[in-house]
């Protein structure tokens, strides 16, 4: 039976066929093996490259760690700081300008123009880790502001608030281009080093897996938050927000209609309750954002000082802070102020009501002593008392950085003092001027008058914001005093319309 199956002629034919098949199979196998080998070689090369890059990263990281060695335990922030510093070291290996500037400053340590030159050069290098960090923080703050600010803006007859969309554009233009360029230059390898702050050196596994993981996470958690490079994603995110139907209290969404005082007289208790809740949420949000901004600026400053140790002197540090703040706040101020205005809407409305009632009031009506303004309008040649101070104060809203705004307030108060001095000289020509320099008793009524004449309810929110962002160092100095006086005067103006009686008694005192 079995023999029958293996009949010679047939079996030979079959065998040949089998043989051919086997040969083809072996050939495929060897091809496959070759391919595998090629793959392995490629993989090995890739690994070697990654290892090299990883080694370099680790080396820099170690160097960064050494600098922080003095610190005992390592917190998450310190960890982040280390990674940022490693980025700085890496940047310095690829770029020469930091070395050159450092050497220059070292040679002429007292040259203030050199220091300011370095700071402004640093601010112009959008690919430097300090600037990348700055942008990252700006986007974070902006992303938190945008949804709320977009939801509805307080109406006011004062200089119209720039709609959030224009500030949106503000952020997009200019910086975007620089950012795109830097992204392209940066390349993929750079990204994986610089963009993930949660990447810890102790977890230094194969870079490959890190990359994969990172990509996996990206779409859900890190789209706009951690990645300064994913600007397209941000843009997409923002357009989505644009399209989202406005939610929340319908009262807030009707931003274009006239919101006047009757808002507070809503008959519905529920509505009032919702408003109250919403206001509380807004205040919490504002608080959190203010805290974020403080932390961001602290982190930026310390990275800046780590990158350029030569800047770590009292005066250079001040310059650094001022420059960082200016760069940080300029595109953000208008959405930030919009949030402050939402929170302080009641106060602004009160200010506005007083302003409308007492717009043409005389300085005497708000308690300015007669000797500190000319009663005869002819002496002012068509202007009104303290006009120069009013004009100066009006400029406050045009600045975009807290420091500039503070300087504006200081100038306003100085102008008030100068005007008061002039007016008094008109009254008492022969008396020596310094015996009765003006004090707060005179200053505050005049300041209230100036604030009334300024006709800008936004001032209330501007000053509230300034209070949050004024420097501790300035707090007890002239700037702090001027801001405090301004706030005091604003509070008085706000109370004017409810307490008309005050005004009348004020006339008497």
């Amino acid at each position: 039976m079995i023999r029958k199956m293996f009949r010679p002629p047939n079996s030979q034919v079959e065998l040949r066929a089998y043989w051919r098949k086997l040969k083809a199979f072996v050939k495929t196998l060897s091809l496959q093996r070759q391919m595998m080998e090629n793959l392995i070689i490629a993989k090995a090369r890739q690994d070697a490259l990654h290892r090299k890059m990883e080694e370099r990263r680790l080396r820099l990281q170690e160097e960064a760690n050494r600098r922080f060695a003095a610190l005992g335990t390592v917190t998450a922030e310190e960890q982040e700081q280390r990674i940022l510093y490693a980025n700085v070291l890496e940047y310095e290996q690829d770029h020469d300008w930091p070395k050159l500037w450092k050497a220059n400053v070292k040679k002429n340590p007292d040259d203030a123009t050199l220091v300011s030159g370095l700071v402004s050069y640093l601010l112009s290098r959008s690919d430097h880790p300090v600037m990348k960090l700055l942008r990252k923080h700006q986007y974070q703050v902006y992303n938190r502001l945008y949804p709320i600010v977009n939801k509805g803006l307080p109406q006011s007859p004062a200089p119209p608030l720039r709609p959030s969309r224009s500030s949106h554009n503000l952020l997009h233009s200019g910086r975007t281009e620089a950012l795109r360029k830097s992204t392209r230059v940066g390349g993929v390898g750079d990204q994986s080093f610089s963009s993930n702050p949660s990447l810890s050196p102790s977890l230094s596994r194969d870079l490959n897996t890190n990359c994969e993981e990172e990509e996996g996470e990206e779409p859900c958690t890190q789209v706009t938050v951690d990645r300064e490079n994913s600007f397209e994603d941000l843009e997409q995110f923002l357009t989505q927000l644009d399209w989202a139907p406005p939610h929340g209290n319908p009262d807030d969404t009707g931003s274009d209609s006239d919101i006047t005082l009757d808002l507070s007289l809503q008959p519905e208790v529920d509505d009032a309750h919702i408003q109250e809740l919403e206001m509380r949420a807004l205040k919490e949000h504002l608080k959190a954002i203010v805290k974020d901004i403080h932390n961001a600026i602290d982190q930026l400053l310390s990275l800046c000082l780590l990158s350029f140790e030569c800047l770590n002197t009292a005066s250079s540090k001040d310059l650094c802070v001022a420059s960082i703040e200016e760069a940080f706040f300029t595109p953000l101020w208008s959405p930030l102020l919009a949030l402050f205005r939402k929170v302080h809407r009641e106060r602004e409305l009160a200010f506005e009501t007083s302003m409308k009632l007492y717009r043409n009031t005389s300085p005497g009506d708000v308690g300015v002593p007669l000797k500190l303004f000319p009663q005869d309008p002819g002496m002012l040649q068509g202007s009104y008392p303290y006009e120069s101070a009013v004009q100066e104060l009006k400029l406050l809203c045009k600045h975009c950085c807290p420091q500039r705004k503070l300087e504006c307030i200081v100038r306003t108060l100085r102008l008030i003092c100068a005007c008061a001095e002039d007016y008094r000289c008109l009254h008492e020509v022969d008396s020596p001027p310094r015996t009765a320099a003006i004090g707060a008793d005179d200053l505050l009524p005049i300041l209230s008058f100036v604030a009334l004449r300024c006709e800008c309810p936004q001032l209330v929110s501007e000053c509230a914001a300034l209070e949050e962002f004024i420097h501790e160092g300035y707090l007890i100095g002239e700037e702090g005093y001027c801001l405090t006086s301004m706030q005091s005067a604003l509070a008085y103006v706000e109370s004017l319309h409810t307490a008309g009686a005050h005004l009348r008694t004020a006339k008497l005192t």
Partner: protein
Amino acid sequence: MASGGSGKTYSFKVVLLGEGCVGKTSLVLRYCENKFNDKHITTLQASFLTKKLNITGKRVNLAIWDTAGQERFHALGPIYYRDSNGAILVYDITDEDSFQKVKNWVKELRKMLGNEICLCIVGNKIDLDKDRHVSVEEAESYAESVGAKHYHTSAKLNKGIEELFLDLCKRMMETAQAEERLKGNGASQSASSRRGVQIVDDEPQATPAGGCCSSG
């Protein structure tokens, strides 16, 4: 961190409180004009003044904040005197009412700032002693009862003003040093603290041992 010099620099904020006509402006102008040159008068005139002092080898920067006496500006009083290290409360010895106002301020300051703030109650215009309406005993016993010091001054005759400020500075320094000791020498300067005392350490941290226990 800071460079140059030796010892510490204290920065103190002092608020000036008192009713409209008690002469607090002349008092502070007298103080800042008298001993040194006119540079101390800022362009804000008498409302905000600064003075640099050197007391027992320690540098002291004084920022003197004048406040409005009028009731209608008192809504935001607390933002004026927050973070103050000292307060000078001035009354007119010929005006009983102005003394009552001082009492109100003392209450408020103690409520807001506790015992950290050094209070000075000042009876001004002693050149008008014949018209005195607030008795010395009453004023002094009140001051003692609230843990304040009492002074008599005359801005017109330039009497008692220098002593008042010097004494206040010394007390503020003591308070600041006591606070330092309390905090310990470790992380004594947290960046987030918004207190008014800013102590710039020029030397390596002083050792906590030895003659630290000299009590006020």
